[in-house]
C-alpha cells in the first residue's frame, strides 16, 4: 500500500462520488458530508482501501428538520482520522446500518435508535439498549418533553 495522503484520498472520492459528497473541514477534522443512501458504499471504501479500521464514535445530533449522523473514523495503529457526516430528514429518519462493515456499530446504532429515534435498515437487532423496552419517545430529540419534576 502506498503512502497515505488525505488530500489525494479526498480527490479520488470526489471523482467517485460526484455530487453525493461534499467536502468540508473544521479545526480538527477533514469532514466528508455524504448523502445517506451512499453511506455504506463510502464507508466500505474507506475501510477497505484507505485503512480506516476503527469506527471510534457513532453519534447523532438533532437539527430540527434533519438529524445529522456523525462517524469519527480512525485507523489503528497509524492514527489517521476522518469525520464522516450524513443527514436524514426527521420525517423519515432511516438509513443503512454499518454493522456489516464494523461490528462495533451494533450497540452504537442501537443507542442512536434508542435515544434519537433513527432507524437503521438491515440492523439485525434494533432494540433499545439503554432505556427500558416500554419507554415512550426518544429523549435526545429536542422536542422531547422532560417529565418528572415539572
Amino acid at each position, binding site marked *: 500500500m502506498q503512502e497515505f495522503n488525505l488530500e489525494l484520498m479526498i480527490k479520488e472520492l470526489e471523482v467517485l462520488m460526484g455530487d453525493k459528497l461534499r467536502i468540508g473541514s473544521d479545526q*480538527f477534522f477533514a469532514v466528508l458530508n455524504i448523502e445517506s443512501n451512499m453511506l455504506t458504499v463510502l464507508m466500505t471504501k474507506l475501510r477497505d482501501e484507505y485503512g480506516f479500521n476503527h469506527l471510534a*464514535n457513532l453519534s447523532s*445530533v*438533532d437539527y430540527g428538520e434533519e438529524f445529522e449522523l456523525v462517524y469519527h473514523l480512525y485507523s489503528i495503529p497509524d492514527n489517521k482520522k476522518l469525520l464522516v457526516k450524513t443527514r436524514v430528514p426527521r420525517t423519515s429518519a432511516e438509513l443503512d446500518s454499518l454493522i456489516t462493515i464494523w461490528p*462495533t456499530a451494533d450497540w452504537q446504532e442501537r443507542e442512536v435508535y434508542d*435515544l434519537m429515534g433513527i432507524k437503521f435498515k438491515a440492523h439485525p437487532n434494533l432494540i433499545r439498549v439503554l*432505556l427500558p423496552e416500554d419507554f415512550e419517545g426518544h429523549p*435526545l430529540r429536542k422536542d422531547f418533553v422532560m417529565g418528572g419534576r415539572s
Partner: protein
Amino acid sequence: MLESDIYTVNVGPIHPSTHGGLHAEAIMDGEIIENVIVHLGYVHRSVEKIAEGKTYQQYVPYTARLDYLATNLPVLGYCQAVEKLLGIEVPERAQYIRVIMAELSRIASHQIAISATGIDLGATTGLMYGMRDRERIMNIFEMTGGQRLLSSYIRIGGVAADIPDGFIPAVMSLVQDIPGMMDEYNGLMTGNEIWAARMQGVGILTPETAIQYGVTGPNLRASGIAYDLRRAEPDGIYHRFEFDIPTRNGGDSLDRWQVRIDEIGESGRIIEQALEGMPNGEISTRVPKVLKPEPGKEVYHRIESAKGELGYYIVSDGSSKPYRLHVRAPSFINLMVLPVICRGGVFQDLITNIATLDPILGESDR
C-alpha cells in the same frame, strides 16, 4: 445419546460479579455457554440529556460519575474537550498536576480491576491487596480535592486549587512502593497454578476481532496491538514523558490481567517524571464565568482512560450550554465483545471474562 435442553441463566443485574448493574443473559447447554445477551441500562442516568441543560462548568461533576473508579480521567477528558472547543490554554503547572492525578486515577482503576478479578475468581485475599494500596491513592485525592471517590478537582482551564503541602512526599512514597505492589500481586496470583488454569486461554480476543469491535485500552493491548492514545494522540503534555506501552500477545484473560499490572508500573514512571518536571506558576487560566463557544463549532476529543478510548463529542450552538454532548464510553464498546469471547467456554469463564474486560457500568450505561 442423552439430550439436553438449552436454558438461560440471568447473571445480574443483581449478582456479586457483575461490577454494578450489568445483566448478562447466559444461554447455556449444560455448563457450556452458547451465547450471552448483554442487557444494559440499569444505571442509565441520561447524562447526555442532562448536559443540554447545564452550563459547561456545571457539567464537570457529572463527568466524574461516569467512571467513578478512575474519577479524574473522565473529568480530564471533558475539560480538555471544552478547552479545545474554546481554545483555552492551560498553564504548565496545571498540566503536570493533571497528569499526576490522571495517572493516579489509572493506577486506582487498575488496582480495582486486578483485585476485583481476584475476588471474582474466589481469591478473596487478592481483593484486599489491591484495596489496601488503592486506599493511599484515595487519601491523596482527599488531600487535593477534599473528596475521595468523586473528586472534580480538574476544572476547565486548570485545576481547582494548588496542591497542598505533603502532596509531593505522599505521591513520591506511593510511586516508590509501586514495584513492590506489583510483585505482591504477581506473587499472590499470577504465579498460582489455579489462577493460570482459570485464565490462560480463556476468552481469547484476537487482534482482528478487537479492532472490528472497537475494543480499546488494556483489552486491545492484551491482544498484541500497542495502541495507546497517550502515545498515538498525546493530549496535554504526555509527549514529554518516557514510558512503554505494555502489550501481550495471547489476548486471553491472563494477558488482559497482566497488561493492567504492567500499566501500573508505567503510570508510576510517568508520575515520577511529572513530579520532577513540575514547574511553579499558575494553576489555572482565567476562564470567564459564562463560556460561550462559537456557534456551530464541534469537537471530538478522546483520551486514553483506564478502560480505553474515552471520547467526548460536543456540539455548540453559541449558548452557554452544549447543544449536544455525546460520550464515547470505552466500557460500553468493550462490553460488546463479551458474547464473542464467551461462546464455547464454560460458565465460570463468563465471570472471568467480565472481570478481565473490566467494564464500569456508570460509563457504559451513562
